[in-house]
């Protein structure tokens, strides 16, 4: 059975906005009351658009920024408590950043960068270097050729392999991948995705995979969490979400994926406008300003994530069943000859 490894409870992060004199003028509500659980051995994908709080979530989980409120538990122990000091937590949970160049020190050789982490945890320089070489070969970079190189001598894909090796150098149990393949070319992305799957099996890892690319998330994740403006709108098994998205936002997001079939191009944008600014998010359900099923109650009631169809599929929309029927009608309409929607 699935055992929780990482639990997030009511995690909230508000960044205060200050004017030139330092007086508070407002706040960016980057993350509001986020709760979820990552199970041992799974890959949990987090998708959403800019401003949805997915990267803030990664940084909060890594304790790189302090939460406004809420807590993170690792194997039942609160992170930063006496049971689980931060340093020990960092040995267990590591992160790979999006920008492969910015995340490597340009003045250090590849192996020095990888060996840095273990040395901080009391591993001797010699052993840390040996571990770095071993990891380099594990991520497909021949140590004899690459260990002594500097980041600028590597391609983007090779640098991201080094970043993955660096994250694995502490022998962590959980790896957070924050848009780790987003900056790579498609053919290189495929190589790195394969590598991630291989490493997951070899080291028995748990992944938290954050991305805006729905195809990639669908490919790699066991479960998917959809975020919108700092909140979770839907969480469930990957196939359940992709085959039958319940939240109107998830539906719109999935329908926004470009068609790969020239005979069935997208006919009309599934949703209008841009995501609103998280500085002053809409009241009630934050999606109500763009939702095509919006009702009077939506702007008043904040929506809680609740389970539907058993415990596997959670959705933060109380009208989802009603919407499902409307959607059916909508779809039938869409299949009619295109007269009114003609451009």
């Amino acid at each position, binding site marked *: 059975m699935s055992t929780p490894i990482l639990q997030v409870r009511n995690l909230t992060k508000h960044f205060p906005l200050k004017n030139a004199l330092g007086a508070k003028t407002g706040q960016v509500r980057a993350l509001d009351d986020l709760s979820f659980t990552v199970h041992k051995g799974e890959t949990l994908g987090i998708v959403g658009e800019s401003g949805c709080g997915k990267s803030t979530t990664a940084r909060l989980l890594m304790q790189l920024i302090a939460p406004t409120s809420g807590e993170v538990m690792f194997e039942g122990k609160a992170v930063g408590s006496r049971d689980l000091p*931060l340093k020990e937590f960092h040995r267990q949970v590591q992160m790979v950043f999006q920008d492969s160049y910015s995340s490597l020190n340009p003045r250090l050789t590849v192996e020095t960068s990888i060996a840095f982490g273990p040395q901080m945890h009391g591993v001797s320089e010699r052993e840390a270097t*040996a571990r770095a070489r071993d990891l380099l070969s594990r991520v497909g970079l021949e140590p004899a050729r690459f*260990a002594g190189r500097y980041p600028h001598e590597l391609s983007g894909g090779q640098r991201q392999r080094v*970043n993955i090796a660096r994250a694995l150098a502490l022998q962590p149990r959980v790896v957070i991948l924050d848009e780790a393949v987003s900056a790579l070319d498609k053919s290189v992305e495929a190589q790195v995705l394969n590598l991630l799957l291989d490493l997951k099996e070899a080291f028995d890892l748990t992944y938290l995979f954050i991305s805006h690319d729905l195809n990639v998330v669908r490919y790699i994740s066991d479960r998917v969490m959809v975020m919108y403006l700092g909140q979770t709108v839907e969480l469930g098994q990957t196939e359940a979400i992709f085959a039958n998205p319940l939240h109107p936002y998830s539906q719109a997001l999935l329908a926004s994926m470009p068609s790969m079939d020239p005979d069935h191009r997208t006919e009309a944008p599934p949703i209008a406008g841009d995501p609103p600014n998280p500085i002053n998010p809409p009241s009630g359900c934050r999606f109500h300003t763009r939702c095509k099923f919006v009702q009077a109650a939506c702007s008043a009631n904040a929506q809680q994530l609740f389970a539907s169809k058993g415990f596997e599929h959670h959705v933060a929309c109380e009208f989802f069943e009603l919407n499902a029927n409307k959607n059916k009608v909508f779809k039938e309409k869409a299949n009619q000859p295109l007269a009114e929607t003609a451009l």
Partner: protein
Amino acid sequence: MISTPLPLSIAPVEQSPGYWSGVLRRFAKDRVAMFAGAVVLILVILALFGPWLTPADPYQSSMLKRLRPIGTDGFPLGTDELGRDMLSRLMVGARLSLFMGITPVICAFAIGATLGILAGFVGGWVNSIIMRTIDVFYAFPSVLLAIALSGALGAGIGNALLSLTLVFVPPICRVAESVTSQIRSRDFVEAARASGANAFAIIRVHVLGNVLGPIFVYSTSLIAVSMILASGLSFLGLGVKPPEPEWGLMLNTLRTAIYTQPWVAALPGLMIFITSMSFNMLSDGLRSAMDVKQ
């Protein structure tokens, strides 16, 4: 010897030429900078060995041989208002002049870089306290500040050095703060924090290597200013005291001869000009050699 218990031996790997060897290679290709470097090298040799290289005694005055023109027999660069050999005095003067120019910059580098890196790395109220204090000093023009401090502290080499140091701490501190906060926001520093490293280790391994170079280059560009300011202080009688040969002071004492022997009187000024130009070109060359997209 006890054999290592490690399963993996550390075999030699292909070592890429490091960043600094690349800088050196690019610097060597820069002709202007290499020329300036050669001039600076000559000046440093003069400063170190000047007293043993001079053709005549730089302190030996003679009322009979005052203000001889350039090219006089025995005095290739003429004599000053007390009949001392200009060539010898200029050579020996390199020592004090360079010392007065470089020392304050070195001291200011140590203080300014430390404060700036601290402010940039820690941020928050530490940053505010350091940087706002620095801003107060920054509000005064450097010449005015140097003269005011020197005047307040009293004449003398020590006080001149101290006041010049204080003048150069603020700009170096500002540069150090800005490059450090840039590096600090890079993901590799975040990654180092995420690996559980403490602030000291992060600064030592990840910050210093990336910020010291740019701060150093900026500081070398201040040497020229420092030399001019030090000469200015000596010129005003706030630095070196006669009869010590120092270019600024020499310029001051020779100014009475500006109508009788203008070329001789201009020589110390020429030396100051050449030296500060060379340091400037050297620092420009270093900057472009270090500035690579990688």
